[in-house]
């Protein structure tokens, strides 16, 4: 049994699986059920000035028979009084002292407002704070949430105010609705944040009803953009985590969020630099008990590799993530089709023929009359498209062709060319 305990910026947790601040963490009843089910921590639904929610709040993106590949919501922060939330948080922490309880906060751009709420939630014994600079709908129109998260200076300023009074570690939750998240992560770090969490939801409109021509969801005939999440956003989130993890100017721990549905997703985030993960949509789709396989699968994964602690994999893949200019131009992979498992759907052929580099031929065997798919390796650019569209896992393998050239990146090539040119210039 591997040690699944984590330490994120000084916040300890029995395992890396936390529920993100969202509908699943709206009340003590829910969070206590989640802890019973095995979740290591929970970020309570964002506290702030009570708001009023609309009805018709969520929508799901279903694709090809799979439900909830994506999910969108226009629910705002907690709509319950602060005192009620604090009472339930206190009770939850008493019942589950070893579990991690984080207070998510969102108040106006006022120093006093931040001081006041920080003191109130820390008084009941939370393990840390998460500043919500991420929610893209509703609150952003009032200058909070992602409206802050889109301005590095606002982030820096508010983190500084919080840090003036905070006794517990401060996590800053960032919005992905921005060109380059490193700039806002750096601002959080400069302001004194102990960690960043990412990503919050992405501006989205799930769909339009073909009969009523109304947006999905709509509130009495009108819609507004929601926050998009679920498995479909995972690659966006993973990139943002990895970019921040490899940026020395960010330099603080990361809590990974965005489409994490399985232990495998979690391992990817941990490898790319997250010290723990937060989950919401998968729990909303299947209930809190999904954490059982997350814990079991992660533990078996670590045991299988003889890794004693989950912390030992945190950030282990970050050094492999770089800029395009550093990639080796002389590296070559080509597609190999394993005929014994090929089912001759010809999807690789048509994908290559119509949309890539025309190097997979349908060849008729003269002896048997059967058709075979054959890769002309000399023409294959190693794009992977065929292996992506192939429905039978493992049938198209991308294999490395050893190169007789030494590794050479674009940056190195350009530098070499520039050096040559300057030599030539010098000679002239």
């Amino acid at each position, binding site marked *: 049994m591997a040690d699944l305990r984590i330490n994120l910026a000084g916040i300890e947790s029995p395992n890396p699986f936390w529920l993100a601040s969202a509908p699943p963490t709206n009340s003590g009843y829910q969070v206590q059920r989640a802890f019973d089910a095995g979740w290591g921590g929970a970020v309570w639904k964002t506290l702030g000035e009570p708001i009023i929610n609309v009805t018709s709040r969520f929508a799901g993106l279903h694709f090809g028979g*799979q439900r909830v590949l994506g999910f969108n919501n226009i629910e705002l922060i907690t709509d319950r009084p602060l005192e009620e939330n604090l009472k339930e948080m206190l009770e939850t922490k008493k019942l589950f002292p070893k579990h991690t309880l984080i207070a998510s906060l969102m108040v106006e751009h006022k120093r006093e407002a931040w001081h006041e709420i920080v003191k109130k939630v820390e008084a009941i014994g939370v393990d840390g704070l998460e500043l919500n600079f991420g929610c893209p709908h509703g609150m952003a129109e009032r200058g909070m949430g992602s409206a802050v998260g889109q301005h590095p200076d606002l982030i820096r300023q508010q983190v500084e105010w919080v840090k003036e009074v905070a006794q517990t570690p401060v996590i800053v939750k960032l919005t992905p609705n921005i060109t380059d998240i490193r700039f806002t992560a750096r601002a959080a770090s400069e302001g004194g944040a102990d960690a960043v969490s990412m990503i919050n939801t992405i501006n989205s409109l799930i769909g339009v009803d073909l009969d009523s021509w109304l947006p999905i969801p709509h509130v009495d005939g009108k819609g507004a953009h929601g926050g998009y999440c679920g498995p479909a956003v995972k690659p966006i989130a993973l990139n943002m985590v990895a970019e921040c993890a490899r940026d020395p100017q960010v330099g603080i721990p990361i809590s990974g969020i965005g489409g994490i549905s*399985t*232990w*495998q997703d979690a391992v990817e985030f941990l490898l790319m630099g997250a010290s723990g993960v937060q989950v919401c949509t998968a729990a909303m789709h*299947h*209930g809190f*008990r*999904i954490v*059982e*396989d997350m814990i*079991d*699968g992660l533990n*078996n*994964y670590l045991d*299988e590799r003889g890794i004693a602690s989950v912390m030992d994999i945190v950030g282990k893949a970050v050094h492999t993530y770089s800029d395009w200019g550093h990639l080796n131009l002389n590296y070559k992979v080509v597609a190999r089709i394993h005929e014994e498992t090929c089912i001759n759907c010809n999807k690789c052929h048509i994908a290559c023929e119509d949309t890539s580099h025309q190097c997979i031929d349908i060849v008729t065997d003269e002896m048997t009359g059967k058709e075979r798919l054959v890769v002309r390796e000399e023409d294959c650019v190693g794009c992977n498209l065929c292996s992506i569209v192939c*429905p*039978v*896992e*493992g049938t198209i393998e991308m294999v490395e062709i050893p190169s007789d050239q030494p590794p050479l990146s674009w940056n190195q090539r350009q530098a070499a060319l520039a050096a040559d040119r300057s030599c030539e210039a010098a000679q002239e």
Partner: protein
Amino acid sequence: MSVRREETKTASMLQANFQEVVPALKPKEAIDEANRCLFCYDAPCIKACPTSIDIPSFIKKIATGNLLGSARTIMEANPVGASCARVCPTEELCEGACVLNHASKPIMIGLLQRHATDWAIKNQKILFHAGEQNGKRVAIVGGGPAGLSAARELARLGYEVTVFEAREKAGGLNTYGIVSFRLPQEVALWEVEQIEQMGVTIKTGTRVGVDVTPEELLQSFEAVLLAAGMGAVPMLNIEGEDLIGVLDAISLVEDTKTKPLTDLMLGKKVVVIGAGNTAIDGATASKRLGAQLVQILYRRTEKEMTCYEFEYEFAKQDGVEFRWLVAPTRIIGENGRVTGIELMRMELGEPDAKGRRRPEPVPGSEFVMEVDFVVKAIGQTRHVDLIEMFGLQHKNGIVEIEEGTYRTSHPHVYAAGDVIFGGGNTDAMVVDAANHGKRAAHAIHTALEAKSQPVL
């Protein structure tokens, strides 16, 4: 030379006939199917499983590539879960309860269960370890599904467990009594190994009542679990039963699992008496041993047969024929060998105690059929002698137990599996025996814990 080639050909044909019939799921098939599972809350499939396997959980684990966790979830609830993946009447249990029956097609739960447990078998995974020793000893009489299931649970709870098994190998029905083309012996033996590696002692070739007495067990162990299963097929008590060519289905199946397959039935005519699952196994085994004609003879009709629907279908697909409303009255022979069987036509009368219409002979309706083999599959005898040696109260060989605790009339003796099945309208299931064993183990634990508490 050609004779030998012919023999080799026959031998390999017979061997091929006894390979597992239902193919395993292909990797893609398993993933596709696992992802189709809805992961229902409070799922009806769990409730339909006698051992309450957390089916949505093990299927989710297949979907996430956590096959070790998946196999563990299965085997935790059911210590013979690899065998049950193959022999359970899933359409009457988990798959029959699947909510997708109402919306599309049920999930192939049995085959997914096989996918996960096959992975554990192939990768030689050890799924469970013994609990911390508590110094208490429990004896289990019988190493079949009920006994093994109890042994596994007791070992996990820290007991020193000794299983007394009369046969050469443990596993009971799963090892000896279910045809190889449905349940290969190595699957059952893997389950035995899983339990043995936890430190459970399995004394094979040891018959309780012959090699060791019940008194000795009661003296040396804090509790005894009787899980001895059932005995041989009873006599038909008709003329000619001692002729060569009269077999019982259980021995016939056992021979196909323990000895080289013979060509004795090649091209012959076989009748099987009875219409339970063992009769089906006897009939399909005969067919696969090369018999030209195999007929199941049953004194009632299709409606009253106790075999599972899928077994009946399987037998028909194998070319087994069925004759209803006939009962044997005499087996006819020449030179000590079966040559025919005399049958009497029956008709159905009033329902009996179990609600099944009683067959009644039609006077003067006797007729003779030419046959080479008569296979008896008319139920199994009960171990009355053994039950009485323990001094247990029983009804016709069915041990009486206290509801919920599996405790017999003897305060230190518990009973599980076939020895307590009252014989309903269907055959007892392996999965029921597994459940009994598991529950009996926990009842024993509760009782022994209570006993070791100081009296205040």
